[in-house]
Every structure is written in structure tokens, then in C-alpha cells.
């Protein structure tokens, strides 16, 4: 008998979560429906009032799936980090059981992925008896999930960069949706390893304006809020449609790499924010401060910080960023504290004013240096001389997956070395 399981969606990350469980024998995955107003309402009704917003949303998703789709088993991540996220699963299970629902929440350990406690959940779900085959399945599922989440990160990054350049409004949104559907239904690892070409050909079809210098903003904050477009009012799209280049700083892939201790980018940011926050206080606090400093150094135009209304770590980060301005932190910043409200009017007023502010800042602020460079991805996609095809010689079908993996490993190792040297250099100076 197979178990039907589901999980919270967290924007496009649901594709990666689905990939982790779909091919596990003994498990049938029910992909979570997208978050809607009703789901948020349901979750808010039965949650404690001052709990963080992601708790309410995920609880609402569980209730929706129990009531409308008859699913009773969910997987939810836990950890023993400094923030409340670690205890979501047990508390949500208790609330649901108190309300009389027949429900089981299976925790998946995520505090340090290198201790491999998370594999226990997968092994427990699998109904294969042969131990070797059991491990084989777990490895295959993990590979699928990792590959897919890396492409999700690629697509969302390109989405932010290209939308501000599109000539026909709505092209990017449509392309992204098609690509995500395609990625969600692709289960052949050989094909998946060439999926970057599919992404590039799809984006290359969008007609864009070349040689423009749009405003650049970094959008970051708490992971769930940043990645779930329904709750952040789709701020990435709103900025893109106003002609602003969005650099989305959060991705599930980056988070998983960080948990595997090989995310050089995050290590660099930690070093940058060390004078202000010396240790991980939960949420995304240290990386938010790090991104801010990096953005300021790279000459960005603005910085958007999204966080749940009652999130302690993000509020701390906000306090630090505000306390250091205007000197040495002069990059314009907007904070959006997000909770149950769905009204967009207040956000629109601030968003439009912020764009006006960034425009005038570019012209009138003596501290601002124009360091705009066209992102290398744009060049890679649109200036290709060789036509992109999915065809490749026989041997590469077998070899590319391995060389790809090897390349990633080498580049990550190299990055780590480089950052170490950089920080050493900083200390000397």
C-alpha cells in the first residue's frame, strides 16, 4: 500500500520537494495547490495570533489539503536552529490533532544536512525491503531534487533580470510558467542535465530592449516570504513591470548548499556582516546584512527587505540596518513587514515612491557611483552566435552529467579558496 503525502508549497520550491519524494517506492505525492486567500484565512484562524506568518500559511495549506483533498500525511522540515521554524512541525501537528483532524506530520531534519539525518525520513517512507536498493532510491531522489532546485534558482534569477527588459508585457511570466511546468514533469536525469539549454532557448525567444541601464534592486529577507509570490504580493513581478531589474537573493538551492557547507556566496556574506552580527541568529539576518553591504559596494540602486511581522531575527537585522544609516549604510532601503493583509494599496504607494526615490538618488546623490554592468546572463542568452540545440553526441549523454557535477564541485572549492584569501587580504589592510 502506498502512502499519499504532501508538503507546504513555498512558491516554486514545490517542484523540488515533489522531486525528492515522487520516485520513492511506497510513496505517492500530491502536489500542493498554490496558496490562495482562503488558505491564508484558514491558517490564520487557527494559529496563535503573534506567530510568524509562514506558520500560518503552511498550517492553512495543511488544513486545505485535509479538508478538500483528503490528504492526511505531510512532510515538514524541522531543525534545532535559533528560530521558531524548528518547532513548526510538532506544534502544527498538535493544533491539527486538537481540532480533531486525523493527521500525521513527518519531520525532516534540516539543521545540518551533512549529518544525513534527513535520509532517515526518506528511508522510513520507502517500502523497499532490500537495504541496497533502498539506498539507491534515496540517492536517485536526492539527485533529482538537487538538479531540479538548481534549475528553479536559475529560472527565477533570469526572470528578475529579463522582465524589466521585455518589450511585450507578460512574456516573461508566461515563459517562466511554461518552463516550470516542463521542469515539474521531466523525470529523465539525462534530459535534466541539459535543461539549462532548454531554459536559454525559451528565454532567448523573448524580445528585449538592449543597451538600457535599468534600476537594480536586491530583494531579500525571510526565505518563505521571499519565495512565495502570493504572500509577498508578487513584488518581483511588480518591480519588473515598472522596469526595475530585480536580483532575488534567496533560493532553495542556495539554502541547501549552505546546509551542505559548500555555499561560498553565503560564506562571503557572513564575513561581510561579521562586524554587525557575529553569529547566526536565525532567519536570514546575517545574510540580509551581508547582501546589503555587498549591494552597496556593487553600486545597486535599492534594497528591499521582506519579513514576517513578528520575526525576531529579521527585525533585529532591520534594526541594525536602520541604526547604521545614513553613514556608513547609505543604500536606499525599504522594509515590508508582511502579515495576513492582502490589500496592495499601501505597498503600491511605497513601491512607486521608492522607484521615484531611486531615480532621483541616481541623479542627485554624491555618494552614488554608477557601476552598472549588464548581467553576464543576458549576454550569454542573447549574443549567442551558435544556435542552441538539444542535440548532443552520443558520449556526452553519458559524460555530461559527471563533468557537470565535477565542474560544480571544482568551482565551489575554488570559490571557497578565493573568499578565504580575500578575507585574509581584508584583515591585512
Amino acid at each position, binding site marked *: 500500500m502506498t502512502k499519499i503525502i504532501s508538503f507546504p508549497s513555498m512558491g516554486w520550491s514545490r517542484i523540488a520537494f515533489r522531486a525528492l519524494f515522487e520516485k520513492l517506492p511506497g510513496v505517492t505525492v500530491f502536489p500542493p495547490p498554490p496558496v490562495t486567500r482562503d488558505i491564508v484565512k484558514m491558517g490564520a484562524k487557527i494559529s496563535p495570533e503573534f506567530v510568524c506568518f509562514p506558520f500560518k500559511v503552511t498550517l492553512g495549506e495543511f488544513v486545505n489539503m485535509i479538508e478538500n483533498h483528503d490528504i492526511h500525511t505531510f512532510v515538514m522540515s524541522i531543525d534545532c536552529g535559533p528560530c521558531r521554524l524548528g518547532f513548526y512541525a510538532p506544534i502544527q501537528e498538535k493544533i491539527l490533532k486538537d481540532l480533531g483532524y486525523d493527521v500525521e506530520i513527518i519531520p525532516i531534519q534540516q539543521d545540518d544536512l551533512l549529518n544525513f539525518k534527513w535520509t532517515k525520513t526518506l528511508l522510513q517512507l520507502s517500502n523497499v525491503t532490500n537495504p541496497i536498493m533502498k539506498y539507491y532510491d534515496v540517492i536517485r531522489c536526492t539527485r533529482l531534487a538537487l538538479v531540479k532546485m538548481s534549475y528553479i534558482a536559475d529560472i527565477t534569477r533570469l526572470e528578475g533580470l529579463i522582465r524589466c527588459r521585455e518589450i511585450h508585457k507578460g512574456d516573461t511570466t508566461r515563459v517562466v510558467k511554461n518552463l516550470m511546468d516542463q521542469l515539474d514533469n521531466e523525470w529523465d536525469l539525462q534530459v535534466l542535465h541539459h535543461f539549462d539549454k532548454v531554459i536559454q532557448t525559451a528565454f532567448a525567444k523573448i524580445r528585449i530592449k538592449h543597451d538600457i541601464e535599468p534600476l537594480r534592486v536586491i530583494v531579500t529577507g525571510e526565505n518563505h516570504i521571499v519565495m512565495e509570490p502570493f504572500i509577498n504580493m508578487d513584488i518581483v513581478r511588480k518591480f519588473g513591470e515598472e522596469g526595475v531589474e530585480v536580483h532575488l537573493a534567496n533560493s532553495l538551492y542556495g539554502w541547501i548548499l549552505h546546509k551542505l557547507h559548500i555555499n561560498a556566496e553565503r560564506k562571503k556574506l557572513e564575513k561581510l556582516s561579521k562586524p554587525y552580527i557575529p553569529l547566526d541568529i536565525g532567519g536570514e539576518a546575517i545574510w540580509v546584512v551581508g547582501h546589503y553591504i555587498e549591494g552597496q559596494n556593487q553600486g545597486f540602486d535599492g534594497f528591499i527587505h521582506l519579513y514576517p511581522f513578528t520575526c525576531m531575527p529579521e527585525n533585529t537585522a532591520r534594526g541594525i540596518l536602520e541604526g547604521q544609516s545614513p553613514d556608513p549604510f547609505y543604500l536606499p532601503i525599504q522594509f515590508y513587514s508582511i502579515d495576513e493583509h492582502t490589500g496592495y494599496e*499601501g505597498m503600491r504607494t511605497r513601491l512607486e*515612491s521608492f522607484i521615484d526615490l531611486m531615480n532621483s538618488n541616481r541623479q542627485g546623490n554624491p555618494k552614488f557611483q554608477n557601476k552598472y554592468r549588464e548581467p553576464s546572463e543576458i549576454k550569454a542568452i542573447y549574443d549567442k552566435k551558435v544556435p542552441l540545440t538539444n542535440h548532443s553526441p552520443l558520449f556526452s549523454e553519458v559524460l555530461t552529467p559527471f563533468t557537470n557535477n565535477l565542474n560544480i564541485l571544482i568551482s565551489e572549492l575554488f570559490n571557497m579558496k578565493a573568499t578565504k584569501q580575500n578575507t585574509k587580504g581584508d584583515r591585512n589592510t
Partner: protein
Amino acid sequence: MEKQELEETKHITSVSLETQSMKTQINQESKFKEIRNVFMGIDIGSVSIKILLLDEQENIIERLWLRNQGSPIESSKKGLAQLKRQLEDHGILNKIRIIGVGTTGSARYLIKSVIGGDIAKTEIIAHAVAAIHYNPEVRTILEIGGQDSKIIILRNGIVSDFAMNSVCAAGTGSFLDHQASRLGIPIEKFGEYALRASENVTIAGRCGVFAESDMIHKAQMGYSKESIIRGLCDALVRNYLNNVGKGKEIEEPILFQGGVAFNKGLIKAFQEELHKKVIVPENGLNIMMGAYGAALLVKEEAERTQKMIGTWETKFRGFDLLHFDFETKAFQCQGCPNRCEVVSVYMHKKDEETGEEKKELVARWGDRCGKWAVY
């Protein structure tokens, strides 16, 4: 009710009529020798609508303030009717030509599509532009309106930072209005009461609910109305500076704008808390700053377009608008599980020659994905 509002508008216009200062004076009939081009700024907020006419030399020609009634569409029509009446009274209706309309305030997009505006800008930018024109040196703007409060920091003549109250409505005009009516004193006298107080009463300012319960307790303990009102003013200033002005460097000159700036008690409380001088735009201009800014912005836009393309034409429907009927319809989109409520605004127009009624869609929004949107 209506009578009271009419009196209020009269009050405002009479205030403006009395003034003879350089920029804010209303030009006399005799000065209008030929037809002038004017720009209109409309600031439609949650409580009131403000309309201001500005000529090409940036003189204020006409202005009015009306409390909102019903929907923004109705209020804007009433506002235009009132404006027409005022212009007739001053005998200048035929001597002006409106060549640009800028809207601001929370209902700016709706009003823009209803009356045919040229640009819709946020209140923050409108207030900042107006303040810079009023006092080019300005470095801080405190703005407290009917439903929200903002702080705008300007450096070197550009907006360098701003904040809006994102968490609560305590300390806004509506809250003061409510408390005034609960204490049984007219809102116009609120400031005077606070100035008359002899002792200090501490009132919790963090949240409107706490403030209200604190006020009731203090009243029951026997404190006078005056001192409670003063305590409330102090609490609101504390709340504003902690919540909205959190961590911002408030430097002089400071302009205090918005309807709440009529309240002398709050001005005093601000000055005591900041130990700095707070300037309120004179002659009741403090409530007109949004509309003033919108008019300046549309003027700027018109000049820029004129320079770039060579022509500029306004989309303003003219005062004929008063004879059109506007109708709003809402429906729930069934396209996805979000079930967005989509609102459409239709204009009923009567063709004068044939007598046929035409129905025209002027605006539609409310959906998240944007497939219905018409602006």
C-alpha cells in the same frame, strides 16, 4: 451634516481669501486680462478631497477642500462642482483653460481614470515636491493625514528616505477625530484644549486601543479634559517618532503638513519632544500640499513632454464630466482559486446630438495576475 461641511469649506476659503502673502494669494479678477493656462492638482485621501489650480507662473489661482462623501467618484464630482461654483463666483471660469491634471492620494488611479488625469503620483513624492517649492531648504517633512502618517527625509533637494506607518493607525487624523467626538469637543478646538492644560498626564501611545483605555481610566480618576488631551498629544508624538520616524535623522528646517498640522497642541508637543522648530505652511496650505505637489508635477511633466515631443494635450474630460454618470460593478474572477474581486468603472455618456446613451469602460482592476486590468 452637510451644513457643517459647507461651513468648513467656507472657513478654508475665507482663510485663503484673507491672505495677501506673495505666493499663496488668490488673484483678483482684474488681473485676468487674457485666458490663462492652468494646471489642476487633486489630492484624494481617505477623509477629504483637495483641489488646487496653479497657473504657469506657479501662482495659486483657486483651491478647495471638501470632506469625502460616499465613494471617491462622488466626492470628486462634488469637488469639481464646487470648484466650478467658486470659479464662477470669482468670475474667472471663462478666463482659464485647464491643460493638465495630476492626481495623488490613495484613490489616485481611480480618480485619474474618472476625471481624465494625466499623471498619478504617490503622496510621498507630491508632498516632497510641494515642500521643496515652499521652502527649498527643507530637510524633514512630517506629514500626518486622515488615515496614515509619513516622514520624508530630504537631503540636497532630493528625497533620500521615507517611511509610512505600516503597522497601525494610531496617531492619525481619524483617531483624533474619534477621540474628540468621544470627549464631546469639536476637533477644531482640540489644540486649544491641549494648550490650556496645566499638568502632564501620561497616556500610552504605542497603540490606539491602549491609548483609549488609558484615557478612560485617567478621566475616571478625575483628570481634566485639557490635561488628558495634552497627554494624548504627547503620546501621539512619541508614537509617531518611535514608529514612523524610527532611527531617522530629523534635521531642521522641519515642515509639518497634513490636516493634523492644524492642531496646535501637536505642534507644541513636537517642538518639545524634538527641541527644534516646526514650521507649518501658512494660510491653511498645510492640507493643500499634496494637491499643490500634484499640480507642480503635472506642470513639470507637461513641460518635459513639450520639450521632447513638441506637443502636450491633457486627457481632462472638462467640467462636462458633471453630467456623466459613473457606475462601478464588481465580480469575482473564476480563473484561478484566488477568486480576485475585480472592480470595473463604467461611464454613461449621453450623446447630445442623437440622445443615445453610450457606456464606456474607464477603469478595471483588483486582480492579481493583471489579465483584467484597464487603467
